[in-house]
């Protein structure tokens, strides 16, 4: 049960990050200190160890059932956040990432691991499909968070009497460009995830498209993102509308995700 122990420590370290970021937001403006970053890096290392341990324990890639899925998703979100942070130094992103990472790891800690030895989970399709999907979700989550930050900062600026968030949140242009970039990256992963999912379904069941609700939601989210990216490139769409679409797209993704994890517990091809 070593993966559980690792995960518990991970939870504690992410909690440090979450609490610290929120406290800093209430008192001062420097959101991320070296303490927060160190705690997060340590948490992330333990998290990685936990996942790898869990892989051995489960005998298949740890992306099946709520316990594994939420843990893996938190891992991807933290990784994408750390990568975004090293590139852009946008600290306000931590306000969205830390609580979410903490909540996901908490859920994982509180749910039992699903034990299944379905032969369909043995191949390479599960690791590839799941990894692509999770990185896609994580990048789209960052886009969602940047969209929210955009709307918040826009409200602050429109109000003409800036309060706390005016000082914390980066400029509109930055929220917009980072959000746009994250959408593109997330969309790429999402597309690949959908393609591998179809291939997997074909291999397992002989059909590419089963037509269940989960596939439809995925498709709707995908179309939304196509529209968003096209609008941005073709007619200079950006700012508020892009932020709103990014948020809507992510809502569709969350819907898909909740459907899969809660309703079925296993990726569609595995059912």
């Amino acid at each position, binding site marked *: 049960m070593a993966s559980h122990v690792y995960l518990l420590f991970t939870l504690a370290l992410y909690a440090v990050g979450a609490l610290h970021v929120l406290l800093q937001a209430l008192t001062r403006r420097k959101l991320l200190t070296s303490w927060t970053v160190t705690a997060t890096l340590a948490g992330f290392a333990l998290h990685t160890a936990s996942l790898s341990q869990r892989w051995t324990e489960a005998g298949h890639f740890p992306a099946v059932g709520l316990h594994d899925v939420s843990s893996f998703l938190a891992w991807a979100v933290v990784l994408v956040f750390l990568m975004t942070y090293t590139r852009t130094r946008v600290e306000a992103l931590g306000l969205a990432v830390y609580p979410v990472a903490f909540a996901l790891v908490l859920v994982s800690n509180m749910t039992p691991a699903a034990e299944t030895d379905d032969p369909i989970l043995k191949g390479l399709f599960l690791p590839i499909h799941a990894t692509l999907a999770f990185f896609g979700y994580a990048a789209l989550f960052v886009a969602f968070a940047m969209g929210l930050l955009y709307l918040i900062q826009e409200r602050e600026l*429109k109000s003409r009497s800036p309060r706390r968030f005016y000082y914390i949140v*980066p400029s509109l242009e930055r929220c917009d460009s980072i959000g746009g970039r994250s959408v593109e990256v997330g969309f790429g992963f999402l597309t690949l995830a959908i393609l591998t999912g179809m291939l997997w379904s074909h291999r397992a069941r002989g059909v590419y498209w089963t037509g269940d609700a989960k596939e439809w939601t995925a498709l709707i989210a995908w179309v939304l993102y196509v529209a968003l990216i096209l609008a941005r490139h073709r007619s200079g769409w950006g700012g*508020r509308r892009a932020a709103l679409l990014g948020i809507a797209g992510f809502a569709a993704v969350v819907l898909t995700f909740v459907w899969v994890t809660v309703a079925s517990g296993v990726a569609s091809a595995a059912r």
Partner: protein
Amino acid sequence: MILVVGLSHRTSPLAVRESLAFSREVLADALRRMRDEAGVPEAMILSTCNRVELYGRGQQVEAAGRRLEEFLCGFHRRPLEEVAPYLYRLAGPDAVRHAFRVAASLESMVIGEPQILGQVKEAYQAAEQAGTLGSALNALRNRSLAAAKRARAETGIGQNAVSVSYVAVELARKIFGELRDKNVLLVGAGKMSELAARHLVRSGARASVLGGRTFERAEELAAALGGRAAPFESLRSELAAADIVISGTGAPGIVIRREDVEHVRSARRGRYLRPLFLIDIAVPRDIDPAAGKLEGVFLYDLDDLRSVAEANLRERQKEAAAAEGLVEREVREFLEWQKSLDVVPLLVELRQRADEIRRRELDRARRRLGPLSAEQEAALEAATTAIVNKLLHSPTVQLKEIARNGGAAEQVAFIRKLLGL
């Protein structure tokens, strides 16, 4: 011991400070006269519009302080009785703390204002050039300036604009991020528009100026900003290319209507949703307030800019507490370090140690020699004491000399090591 005598915006009205200020031209002369007349081995004068302060080093605090006050009044030919109520006098740790706080702009009228650091630097430089800066004040310079820089870098006291023209720049940054290659349109060529535009151009923005009745003025300003001038009739086409508009005409009514902005924003599809920052610094206002309701348009008038400046000042004051803590820690470190320079405890220790050795060796000798007569006992005592005194004479003189010159930590540390103390 470091001494400070002076007056500031907290203790005195501007007229008094003016009458006691030292201009750049007289500074070198004043520094040398201060050293000679007030009898302080080291001297520095900080003279800004908010404070006039004399920094010196001296032994008798009371007397040296008095002489500094007399010099300050004498130099400006003002009677001391008149000036005395405005003066403060600080010595030792208090003077050190004051020097640190002034450099970190914690004593400034606007906390965190950036000029003071440069002014303090220049004051020390002037003293160095005049040859009145010794090791004590030089150490104070190094440590207080380093602490001030740390306070600025590690706390938010220097952050957030507190003047209207800087607030405009800061807001532009919050909207556009980078200002490089952004187009600034000036409508009307007033003083305040020019100031704000200058800040923007310095950050890489391009300026164009719309001329009104006096086109020459617009051309002049455009040349000064490295931009171009355009006639007022081309308002809409200029507006279409602009990211930031600063309007400050003397016109009695609205100059930029909501329709103008709407028209411009729907005319060019490619840039339809890019933000537009409208700054209205005219009284009465130039820009229709309704224009600020359009999507992606941010409209600030003079009152809005002022209220942002006030909010920023409140943020700074919150940060001041953190800066105070940081500076206080630096002050304590400096005082500790200063104490380590003090040679008096070293001299006492040295003497005690030598006497201890003398006694011990004397006892051993007595045991071997057996009973001695009173004369023999006295002679032995005198001889050993003389040896100790003669050996210690030169180190004592030298140490006192080092202390008189302000001392150097490395020297004292080396001597301690050498003597095994």
